[in-house]
């Protein structure tokens, strides 16, 4: 592993940053396992060295500081930053951004990666600025946070972009070796629209006074403070001079192998509603428990195309992520080790044990992914409720967060992935108001719904509010229908149903519209070891009447909204799954009977063979 890390350690020490976008050109390398000590001069957004002793010293710019040696623009094309790029390959569907607005009953999956079932932010009228304000708390910068200058100038919020600046990639979000970088503080700065200042404050290099969101559109950072309205003075930094050496350089404690806790700020998933004791005894991913870090498998080269770990076998992802096939479950556990074929006695990368799977027919590997049996929580007859960092803002301290907060994310769901294999998934039912034209639904943003149908929206008395009643839905649809210049029929999507108004003004409910389908994405972690995987209890972990993987409900309650059973979700024949379950009830009897049969026949065969042999030897008449 270390050899692998060393092979990709590239530390650009050259000042020739202009050539850094060409692979291998203009980059100095250490090619050492020892990390390069980053004692750096900070540069501001104009490329000028920062003197922290000066009043009004500007924030540091990762683009200008880190980009002195590292190819910032090339890195900006990597997985964590390239979502808005139309040429970026989206790969397998992942967790979308969920635009949640309880007051309008909205849970809208968003993604710029072209994942089926998720809407591109621009398609629903969400500007980059609005996107960053909603989700910037968990954006590492770049992408939506750093549209090019022309786009920022052309944006409706051009004046605000000018005040706040771009939300550049904050390298320390991932690469901070210790917890001196505070992503939660960074999220607070994003909320205050202090985009340009966020990296500096999160790194603990300075504290900030003032907020960009309170500064006027024509804010001039050079202008003296407005004594009458000090809150409109905009952000100003107070640097911690103790962090600077006599040459005004700062020691950045960086790593290429960040601890999992860094990743967890954005990638935490927690089950809610569990008893305290159960939470206390909750397991960890077996790989982390074994001492691996996330980046041991989710690696990247200089271009920061992170290996997502599902072993993409098709172009262009295969070419894009060279290590994709090798750094997957199969790659480590079934691959080769130094050219030697793995087997029960030869471990794979990181000492990954070769899976025995004794007694498991190989057919299962064609029909199911590894994660179906090994990932996520042990399934029950009903799915369980989860919260994620991206959807519920985990990682940010709050006294307001409750287990029942929307959106409702369910797991484990056993659906089919894009390759047709059964996999463990998470699921969310989209809910949104929209306009239906033909078969295409264009969602409306909650602000638009409030503007057009505010009076008809249900008054939120409870928190979280209950789903709107049929009468409330009809009232809002009628209000949306009356809106001037509205193109398309007003509809509401919830729990797999499409609501619309009939010719008589009554509510018409349609099931099965593609725009109402549940959004599902694969569960990768936490991985359970073999001793805790499905099947450890035998075939009847899955092949029995009542097995959660087949007969479980994709809802928290059997009678809950959209409570499909897993086999229904996969479109399987109910008679077939029941016949399979019934068939396996007789399997122990069959085994005994078949062994008896083949045992008797074997004895007969042996006896006959012995007779024949004796006859051949002339010892039998």
């Amino acid at each position, binding site marked *: 592993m270390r050899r692998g890390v060393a092979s990709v350690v590239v530390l650009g020490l050259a000042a020739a940053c202009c050539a850094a976008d060409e692979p291998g050109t203009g980059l100095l390398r250490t090619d050492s396992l020892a990390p390069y000590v980053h004692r750096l001069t900070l540069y501001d957004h104009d490329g000028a060295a920062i003197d922290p002793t000066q009043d009004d010293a500007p924030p540091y710019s990762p683009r200008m500081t880190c980009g002195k040696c590292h190819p910032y623009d090339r890195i900006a094309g990597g997985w964590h930053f390239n979502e808005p790029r139309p040429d970026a390959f989206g790969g397998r569907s992942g967790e979308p951004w969920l635009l949640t607005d309880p007051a309008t009953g909205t849970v809208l999956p968003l993604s710029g990666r072209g994942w089926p079932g998720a809407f591109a932010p621009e398609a629903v009228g969400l500007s980059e600025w609005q996107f960053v304000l909603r989700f910037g708390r968990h954006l590492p910068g770049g992408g939506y946070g750093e549209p090019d200058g022309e786009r920022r100038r052309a944006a409706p919020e051009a004046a605000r972009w000018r005040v706040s600046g771009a939300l550049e990639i904050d390298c320390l979000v991932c690469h901070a070796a210790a917890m001196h970088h505070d992503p939660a503080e960074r999220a607070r700065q994003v909320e205050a629209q202090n985009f340009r200042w966020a990296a500096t404050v999160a790194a603990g290099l300075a504290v900030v006074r003032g907020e960009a969101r309170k500064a006027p559109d024509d804010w001039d950072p050079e202008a003296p403070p407005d004594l009458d309205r000090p809150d409109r003075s905009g952000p100003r930094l107070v640097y911690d001079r103790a962090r600077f050496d006599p040459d005004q350089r700062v020691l950045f404690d960086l790593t290429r192998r960040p601890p999992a806790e860094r990743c967890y700020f954005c990638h935490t998933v927690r089950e809610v509603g569990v008893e305290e004791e159960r939470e206390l005894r909750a397991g960890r991913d077996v790989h982390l428990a074994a001492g691996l870090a996330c980046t041991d498998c989710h690696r990247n080269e200089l271009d920061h195309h992170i290996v997502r770990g599902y072993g993409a076998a098709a172009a262009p992802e295969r070419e894009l992520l060279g290590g994709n096939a090798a750094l997957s479950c199969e790659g480590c556990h079934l691959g080769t080790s130094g050219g030697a074929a793995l087997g029960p006695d030869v471990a794979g990368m990181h000492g990954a044990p070769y899976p025995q799977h004794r007694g*498991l027919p190989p*057919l299962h590997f064609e029909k199911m992914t590894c994660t179906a049996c090994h990932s996520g929580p042990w399934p029950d007859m009903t799915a369980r409720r989860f919260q994620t960092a991206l959807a519920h803002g985990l990682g940010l301290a709050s006294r307001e967060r409750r287990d029942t907060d929307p959106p409702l994310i369910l797991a484990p769901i056993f659906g089919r992935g894009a390759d047709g294999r059964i996999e463990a998934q998470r699921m969310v039912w989209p809910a949104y108001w929209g306009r239906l034209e033909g078969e295409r639904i264009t969602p409306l943003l909650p602000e638009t719904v409030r503007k057009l149908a505010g009076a008809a929206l249900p008054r939120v008395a409870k928190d979280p509010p209950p789903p709107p009643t049929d009468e409330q839905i009809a009232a809002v649809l009628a209000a949306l229908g009356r809106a001037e210049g509205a193109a398309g029929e007003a509809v509401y999507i919830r729990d797999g149903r499409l609501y619309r108004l009939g010719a008589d003004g009554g509510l018409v409910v349609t099931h099965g519209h593609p725009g109402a389908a549940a959004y599902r994405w694969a569960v990768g972690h936490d991985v359970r070891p073999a001793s805790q995987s499905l099947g450890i209890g035998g075939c009847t972990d899955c092949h029995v009447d009542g097995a959660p993987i087949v007969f479980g409900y994709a809802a928290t309650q059997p009678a809950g909204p959209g409570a499909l059973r897993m086999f229904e979700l996969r479109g399987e024949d109910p008679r077939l799954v029941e016949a399979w379950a019934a068939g396996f009830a007789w399997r122990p009897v069959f085994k005994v009977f078949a062994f008896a049969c083949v045992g008797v*026949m*074997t004895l*007969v065969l042996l006896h006959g063979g012995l007779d024949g042999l004796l006859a051949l030897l002339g010892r039998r008449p």
Partner: protein
Amino acid sequence: MSSVPQPASSPIPATAAPAAVGGAARERRSLSAWEHVAHTVALVGVGVQAVTGFGEGLGLGELEGWRLLAHLCGAGLFAAGFTATMLLWLPRARRAVPGMGWVRRTLYWLVLAAGVAVMWPMLLAMLPLAGTAAQEELVEWHEAAALTLVVLMVPHTVASLVARLRC
């Protein structure tokens, strides 16, 4: 050679014995009800297993879903019918009797060996013994033995029919 011993419960009709080695007894031996049942179950079992198991080669697609379930259920029929039939014919296969020349006796033992070779791999695969690679090998053995069995069934059937017509 002496005559075949006939226990009271033997399913072999009395008309089939006594018989001399290479004798020219030409009495037609009718099958008992049990033999009919056993043969029918065995034939259905072999037929179901052959059609479902080799369906992919016959253009029926991958072995999955209903066809796989039928294959698993057919395994019970096959095990019962095949074992019963083999045991019924065992006394005659061990000694030459009228209508059971060396060709049919040889075929009996070959079919029995193939049947055993078909069953053992999949039964072993059901136990938590064989890992993935071994499972794949067992499946290959199962398929090869099954193909052998099906191929042997052709001369076995022809020989049986010829013997019946001669009687």
